């Protein structure tokens, strides 16, 4: 049984902070199919279209019938743990710092035998569930988990290395006063966060629900933060930057309007200021500090969350300027992901459909409740994925974009 994680002690400022190392990064291009699946939180392997063989490790052709038609498909993730070992020595710095480390061989019901990280609650000879997760290097690895959930299983140090669980971590919610921001704060507290900093860009504005939330839990702390103001962002980073282990960027500037129905670019500029340049300001102020603390104990800095929109992938012309800002933010997030990867800090992008809040008043249902969005964010962090699609509309658009993106473009423009 997994020992429950102990709340980390207050940091001794005199001690040196352990710098981040990464597990081995190189992979063949075929193996990056696993990385794609892990980033999206699905369990897929190569399946031969001609003979049905499930194969692992990934190959260029079917190892059974030599067909070139091998596709990534969901497969049965169960198997028998037929051998295990505990490493007390490693050739790699990252693992050396984390020994002992348990690995094993799982004979999958689907066919192949795989080498996997093995959860401490798995018994040799027993049935296990395999899951694909991203390790700290951002590459996919297989974890063998107990057949059924066990108490505190997410606290196991090996598994926690592949996830971004908010438990005992400190979270900055950049706009804490919005409906989404408040819901994210609540969900983080429920998930066991040690502290939640609530960014407030309009301290002059009284929002009763916000005041009520702040009074409800001593772990909540309001901080002044205006993402359009570089000084404001820098001031906050100087004050709490060393304590932020998860940053959830909830700041958003959502207004209707396309291109030809206006005579100016003011609305577009405002959206860019918040949604694009705001993200960049936050990243420049908080990114380096998070990288510095990316291997700092059990409450190391782990994740950067951007709340984008499904319309980052396909513009909604009625909100053309806003859609463009979300697409720009998505592009920027890919650069941020590349820059944070060296330290092992994960960038998780969230793609919701319409959210049930004030600026979406006239949008017809289905809409996502802010609490549902917040729950999906926490789950994404606990699972350690990179992309989270929230709500039926987002899921449907995602599927249809793969099928025919031109059809989606036409229909969104009607």
């Amino acid at each position: 049984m997994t020992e429950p994680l102990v709340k980390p002690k207050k940091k001794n400022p005199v001690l040196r902070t352990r710098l981040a190392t990464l597990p081995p990064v190189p992979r063949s291009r075929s193996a990056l199919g696993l990385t794609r699946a892990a980033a999206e939180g699905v369990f897929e392997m190569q399946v031969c279209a001609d003979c049905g063989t499930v194969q692992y490790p990934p190959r260029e052709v079917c190892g059974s019938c030599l067909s070139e038609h091998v596709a990534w498909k969901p497969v049965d993730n169960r198997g028998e743990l037929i051998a295990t070992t505990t490493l007390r020595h490693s050739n790699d710095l990252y693992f050396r710092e984390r020994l002992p480390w348990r690995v094993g061989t799982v004979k999958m019901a689907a066919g192949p035998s795989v080498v996997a990280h093995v959860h401490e609650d798995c018994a040799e000879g027993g049935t296990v569930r395999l899951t694909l997760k991203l390790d700290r290097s951002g590459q996919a690895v297989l974890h063998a988990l107990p057949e059924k959930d066990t108490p505190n299983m997410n606290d196991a140090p090996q598994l926690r290395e592949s996830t971004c669980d908010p438990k005992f971590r400190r979270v900055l919610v950049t706009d804490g006063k919005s409906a989404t921001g408040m819901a994210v704060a609540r969900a983080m507290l429920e998930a066991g966060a040690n502290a939640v900093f609530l960014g407030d860009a309009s301290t002059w504005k009284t929002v009763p629900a916000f005041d009520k939330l702040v009074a409800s839990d001593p772990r909540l702390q309001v901080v002044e933060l205006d993402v359009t103001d570089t000084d404001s962002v820098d001031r906050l980073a100087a004050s709490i930057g060393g304590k932020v282990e998860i940053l959830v960027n909830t700041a958003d500037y959502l207004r209707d309007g396309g291109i030809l129905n206006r005579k100016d670019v003011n609305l577009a500029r405002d959206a860019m200021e918040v949604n694009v340049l705001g993200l960049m300001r936050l990243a420049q102020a908080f990114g380096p500090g998070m990288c510095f603390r990316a291997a700092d104990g059990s409450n190391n800095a782990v994740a950067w969350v951007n709340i984008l929109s499904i319309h980052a992938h396909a513009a909604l012309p009625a909100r053309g300027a806003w859609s463009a800002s979300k697409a720009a933010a998505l592009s920027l997030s890919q650069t941020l992901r590349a820059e944070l990867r060296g330290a092992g800090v994960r960038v998780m992008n969230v793609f919701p459909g319409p959210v049930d809040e004030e600026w979406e008043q006239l949008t017809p249902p289905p809409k996502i409740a802010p609490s549902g969005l917040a729950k999906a964010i926490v789950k994404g962090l606990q699972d350690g994925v990179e992309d989270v699609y929230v709500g039926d509309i987002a899921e449907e658009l995602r599927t249809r974009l793969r099928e025919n993106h031109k059809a989606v473009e036409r229909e969104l423009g009607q």
Partner: protein
Amino acid sequence: MSMVASAATRAAPAGKRRGYDGVAVTVPVTIPYVRYSTRSAHWWLGRALAELIRGAGIAKGEVDGVCVSSFTLGPDTAVGLMQHLGMSPRWLDHIPMGGASGVVALRRAARAVQAGDAEVIACIAGDTNHVDSFRNTVSQFSRFAQDAVYPYGAGGPNASFALLTDYYMKHYGASREDFGKLCVAQRDNALKNPHALMKKPLTLQQYLDARPITDPIHLFDCVMPCAGAEGYLVMSEERARALKLPYARVRSTIERHNAFPEDPIQFRGGWAMDKDALFDHAGVAPADVDFLETYDDYPVINAMQFEDLGFCAKGEVAGFIRANEFTIDGSFPFNTSGGQLSVGQAGAAGGYLGFVQALRQLTGSAGRTQVKDAKIGVVSGFGMINYDRGLCSGAAILERGATQGEAA
């Protein structure tokens, strides 16, 4: 042929194989191992070639065939090495089969000599060992290792062998004491071999008390990576006699790659498919064998070779180990040089160690490690954990040709 083996677990009957008549294997050479070397692989391979030429008493130009194995020769291959060493052979091979290289090199070279494609072939294997060589070799060993093994703790071969040792011990009844008995006997043999890096005796208690490295692998189950080189010459018996060289003859050989891919984890090697073909072709039985030199990067592989080469049945290895003594003067002389576990693992030269030692035994030049009246020896090789198991296996049955006294 045995009637019990099922069609699925043995090789299909091959067409009649030709023998190795007229082939001589000679001039066993070892370039003494060191733990770390600042030299490159080219130095070690060059030294081995020089020793072969000196030992045979021939001119450099008379070596018209070369066969090379090395992990650390990169970016060169055997081709670049020929220019490096100023050789112009008319036959050249590069065998990247790790622990199976010694046997496979013989197979290639013997046929080339029989066919007249080359007259004197130098088979050499060697590697350097810099302080970071081992980590580099392990992390870039193969595509499957890079994709599907190294990211899981980067334990290297220790981790892969730990998993199959764990499985083997649970399903085939071998205990740590059994493995320990083999390691202790090999150390005893190594104390008689001046080339062995391990110079201190090992007791069973020390073996059992050693620190765990990667359960159930403990310290004395692991080889020590080092630098070194090994080599031998293949030529016609006629030529060997003319040069007055003691030599061994080849009774039979086998090789097999990626055997039993459907096994969920490795508990047997390719020998299990080919052992009947090996002994039938050689016209001898396991009981006729005077000594055995196996590839011993971990004790579990020794146990598999006992079973899969037919010295005992599958699952009976514990009884076999308990019933025999494995020292040079024991009931089953085994890894008489001390093996890699006590001599050291000089990269690809580890795949030649047993072969070269067998040549010493059969030419009467094994010194204090000599097995009395050794006439028939079996050498087996095993190599290349590409993903989760060793893929290459090979074996050769050698017999005494002319010994030192007879040749002179």
